[in-house]
């Protein structure tokens, strides 16, 4: 079935809708089909499903979802909450302000996230179990350090030490058993009660001296471990591009299905005019469209095309057609999170090392070797380290793409190759040369528009412009437009929030929560289903918690600027998916084929996103 002629899906009983006058019926069907394919279908396919869950998992999920809703609500209502509640304010070069009364909520959300992660890690691969447990212990000890007492081991610190020991013992004891719901209760109770006690102790000690330790503690904790939300923020950056791509595909599709060809022609002309005007304005503005940038856009597209050709060659002729734009879009959410984790891989050790240093500082006091170590650890967050890491991840993606293509897989290798090319290009630019030559979304859009316009003119002159080609070009032009103007998704939300930088990330997080849980609907020996469910919940909850914190602090830099990393994700995944979709579209245009919806060989790729 073609992309344009998807299943005729009515969202109202046939008899009722069919009885409507055409002037109402057709727009309704178009709108409902569009909404269904763009918004509802990804949710149906990607959501977490309560099927064959072990006992107690439902309750854990309910608790996590309630916490998630609370965090999102805190973001949405951050402005009125700040206006209504007294603020804790610390003045300085960078002033920090926060509604004081809400602070304890974040402590609960953080501990809940860590507990979900820890419980999940108890029954997964050993290396991951060890890493996560070590991180949990460090976080626990780190918070406990705030309860300082001269000449004595404070009871708050003792409580966190005891909790850490008990946690490790518990993990070891339960390691060989299956998941049990009460493990989460034990972990959450252990961490929660010990940390609450430690924080209470520190507060009781400090408050008679007029020191409010709570905001300081929370800000330090958020600043340190907030970086663990970077992978999810990078992945969240793909949401808008994903939505833009599917919107472009479906929009033309519903026009094709429900309206005469004349409507397609009118739409194509309108799109062409719109794009022409935008291109002219963009060129006039003169920024981000220098000749070098246009050239690198062409080069990027050529590299991606070249990579796809190579993969097709490696696959041989048995699997004929390259992936469609829809197939690429469908697979994106599955790969975004692990790739995001890879791109931010240095932040994990950095956070762990910083936690360890803080704990050692707290227990041992100032020492030269600790100062030296602190400087060394800073290298992990250095721009060169990050650049080299990302370059390596890009190369790895290309290698994986080649290997999987050799195993006759389809779609995911092309997707990884597209992403890999983008990552390698970005990393090389940041490491080796000035970024002024690097492609931009504006330059890519201009190149794509010029190519589409050129093809249209060619087909017109050669009198080979068919309906299929018109549809394909319309999708390509609309895709280009939405890619360049993809703020259309986050801007309305941003206008409501009135807070810059949150809307984009919030949209990505919520979209991921609603559509990217499918990997947790299956299990494997090394990563059983309950662990995947809890990992999914932990990741999503932690991300929105950090985001809610920055929203209520009304300062994107108060913990970690997730918006900046979402922009990175948008740049990487957005560029890859749009260029890939354009390549797929234009290939169909050249061969006068309607863009495909069917994904032959889809089953062979499903395993590629699980590991």
């Amino acid at each position, binding site marked *: 079935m073609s992309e344009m002629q998807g299943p005729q899906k009515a969202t109202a009983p046939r008899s009722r809708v069919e009885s409507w006058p055409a002037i109402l019926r057709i727009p309704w069907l178009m709108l409902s089909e569009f909404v269904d394919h763009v918004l509802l279908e990804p949710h149906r396919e990607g959501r977490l499903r309560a099927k064959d869950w*072990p*006992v*107690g998992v*439902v309750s*854990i999920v*309910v*608790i996590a979802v309630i916490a998630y809703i609370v965090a999102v609500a805190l973001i949405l209502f951050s*402005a009125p909450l700040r*206006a209504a509640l007294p*603020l804790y*304010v610390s*003045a*300085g*070069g960078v*002033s920090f*302000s926060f509604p004081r009364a809400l*602070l*304890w909520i974040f*402590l*609960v959300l953080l*501990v*809940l996230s860590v507990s979900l992660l820890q419980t999940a890690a108890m*029954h997964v691969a*050993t290396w991951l179990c060890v890493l996560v447990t070590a991180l949990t212990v460090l976080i626990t000890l780190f918070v406990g350090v705030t309860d300082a007492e001269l000449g004595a081991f404070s009871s708050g610190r003792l409580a966190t030490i005891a909790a850490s020991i008990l946690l490790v013992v518990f993990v070891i004891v339960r*390691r*060989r*058993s*299956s*998941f049990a*719901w*009460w493990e989460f*209760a034990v972990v*959450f*109770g252990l961490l*929660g*009660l010990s*940390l*609450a*006690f430690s*924080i*209470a102790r520190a*507060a*009781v000690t400090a*408050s*008679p*001296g*007029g020191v409010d330790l709570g905001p300081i503690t929370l800000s330090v904790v958020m600043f340190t471990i907030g970086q663990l939300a970077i992978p999810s923020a990078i992945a969240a950056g793909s949401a808008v591009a994903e939505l833009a791509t599917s919107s472009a595909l479906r929009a033309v599709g519903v026009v094709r299905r429900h309206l005469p060809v004349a409507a397609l022609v009118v739409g194509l002309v309108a799109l062409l005019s719109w794009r022409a005007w935008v291109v002219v304005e963009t060129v006039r*503005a*003169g*920024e981000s469209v220098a000749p070098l940038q246009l050239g690198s856009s062409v080069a990027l597209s050529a590299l991606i095309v070249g990579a796809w050709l190579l993969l097709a060659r490696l696959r041989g002729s048995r699997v004929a057609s390259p992936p469609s734009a829809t197939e690429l879009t469908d697979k994106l959410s599955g790969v975004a999170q692990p790739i995001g984790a890879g791109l931010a891989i240095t932040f994990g050790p950095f956070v762990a090392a910083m936690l360890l240093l803080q704990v050692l500082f707290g227990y041992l006091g100032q020492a030269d070797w600790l100062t030296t170590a602190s400087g060394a650890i800073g290298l992990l967050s250095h721009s060169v380290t990050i650049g080299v890491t990302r370059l390596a991840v890009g190369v790895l993606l290309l290698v994986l793409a080649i290997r999987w293509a050799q195993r006759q897989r389809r779609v995911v290798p092309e997707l990884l190759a597209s992403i890999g090319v983008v990552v390698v290009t970005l990393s090389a630019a940041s490491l080796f040369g000035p970024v002024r030559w690097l492609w931009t979304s504006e330059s890519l859009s201009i190149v794509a528009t010029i190519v589409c316009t050129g093809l249209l003119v060619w087909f017109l002159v050669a009198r080979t412009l068919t309906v299929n080609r018109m549809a394909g070009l319309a999708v390509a032009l609309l895709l280009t437009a939405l890619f360049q103007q993809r703020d259309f998704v986050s801007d309305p939300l*941003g*206008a409501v929030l*009135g*807070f*810059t*930088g949150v809307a984009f990330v919030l949209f990505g997080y919520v979209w991921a929560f609603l559509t990217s849980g499918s990997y947790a609907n299956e299990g494997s*020996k*090394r990563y059983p289903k309950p662990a995947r469910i809890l990992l999914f919940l932990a990741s999503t909850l932690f991300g929105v918690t950090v985001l809610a914190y920055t929203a209520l602090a*009304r300062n*994107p830099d108060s913990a970690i600027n997730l918006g900046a990393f979402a922009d990175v994700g948008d740049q990487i995944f957005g560029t890859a998916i749009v260029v890939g979709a354009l390549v797929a579209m234009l290939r169909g245009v050249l061969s006068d084929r309607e863009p495909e919806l069917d994904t032959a060989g889809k089953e062979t790729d499903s395993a590629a996103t699980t590991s």
Partner: protein
Amino acid sequence: MQTTPQKPAHGPWGRVIPAAVLAVVTSLVTVCFAVADNPVVEVAGGAAARYVPAEGYTHWSLTVERGSPDVRRVTESARSTGYTEVIALPEAQTSHVLAALGSDVRTTQFWREITHVLDGEDQSQLTDLYTLTDEGVSLVAGYGGTVGWVYSPPLVQLPPDVAPGVSWTGEGDAMPFGLITYAHSASAVTPNDAVLLANALAHDVDVSRCIQIDGETQLFDESGADIVLIVQSELWCEGKGRVAVVANVAEVESQHLASAPLPEATGISTNSTPRRWSDPGSWVRRSATVTLDDEFFGANAFNLGLADAPRAAASGLLITANTNTADVVALEPLGDRLVRAWYAHPGGDIVTFSTVGDVTVVSTGLRELVAYDAKGRRLWQHPVPELVVAPPTSTGDGRVVSVGLDGTVTMLDAVTGEIVWTRSVGADVDLPAVVAEGRVVVIDRAGAVSALDAATGEVAWSIESEPATEMLGFGAAVATVGDDGWLRMIAVSSGEATGSWRYPGSYRALLAVGENVVLATDEQIVAIDPESSEELWRDDGVEAAISDGTTIVVFRGATAVGLDAAGAILTSWDVPASLLWSTRYVVATESSFVLMHTGSDATIVGAP
């Protein structure tokens, strides 16, 4: 590792028990954190604490004395705990106060009153420090007048069980070394003094929440001879402190009555004199000490906690925000000293501040804008819906523009605080507005630039740009230093982009030097002609840079270098390098530049 999958539970209890247990655990953890984060700190002082004003409370009063003109006073209240209040006293007074307090000062709660006298010959600034302890509310120290006081033991104003019918007495030293001693007796009654009651009613004070303290204080000299007898009736009201007083001091009657705000609104200049350094090549460096000169306790070094750069007022004073006590402190450069000219407590933490001629406008953590005149006397205060983190901007015609974190742009009269107009740009803003060509230009965190008509607040234009670190006016244009490494010029009249330049490194300063734009980063400093977009000259990177519009001073390590508008070196000075533990701030004044950091020492480079 996982072995066999868990068997499904049997019956509904298999679902109910996990749900119930998890709900209990979750509730327990949640409650524990809610309790842990809200330790109850009792306000000391017993029943007396109710009468102490809250942090930031302001009270206007009129001193009425027969045969003398009325004297206006404004009193600001500060509440804190611990050593900072005591350390902020004159050095010569501090040790005596610590001795008088005796107990653990770290946990002692303080109430400080700062009173500005607006009229009369003696327009001094008086400070009174009270403690809130198990003894009630007690006066422990006072300074600022011709005489300074240290009460040991502290003079009880209100006992912890204060109520009508309660009486108390006390005696001890009123000055260090027993130079003057006191004997005090007082009793609390239901308000009955006609003058006090009339004054309270005239100002809508709920007398049912007030108490009258009738007291006598006799002061004696070292030999025990009487010096003066003070008899007074004070009206204390909950949350308002001492609302009104009727006093008889050495047979002279006076009344200190609550009053509506009566700020000094005349003779206040809001003009900012353009700074033009004269012959900076002849300037020399000298060390300076921040001092507090008290008529009684003498000159004392004074520690300032700085978290923001000082500002220069048109009067020549340096305005600073002291984070130790959340006070605005004005310093007067006098030779090798920076003497505290006045100080004020706007209430809450000081978020940011700026000067509009002689007016200082402060944004506080209590979400208020507070303005002071050249002598540190409060002019007005205005609540704002959200914190104002960007320093307010002077319009040059007696008005000031403040932009809140929520994007609320407010135009106010700098002297009266009257709101001219308010407009929202709809997104968060943390950079100060630029006023040029009759427009107020604002850039939000997303990089959207909006121009509002300065007279009406109507939006003239709005464009999308890039997020910026700085925005400055250059004649008919504004320059934005983008986070993306681009310097952009935007015409104020139309919002059109008129030029852009790429810059390397991290931003340090943006200066208007003559008709040119000078952009300083840690990698280079470059001068650009905004008309022709021509690069005029370039030099090595800097840590900081300031200018008077013709001469530039750049800071590199322990050296400050003066450059002319063409980038040629005029002279250089050795200056203290940035400290690892304390940020160095530099401020340009009329005839010098001053480097300061947290502490009591500074460096002035100026005319010899």
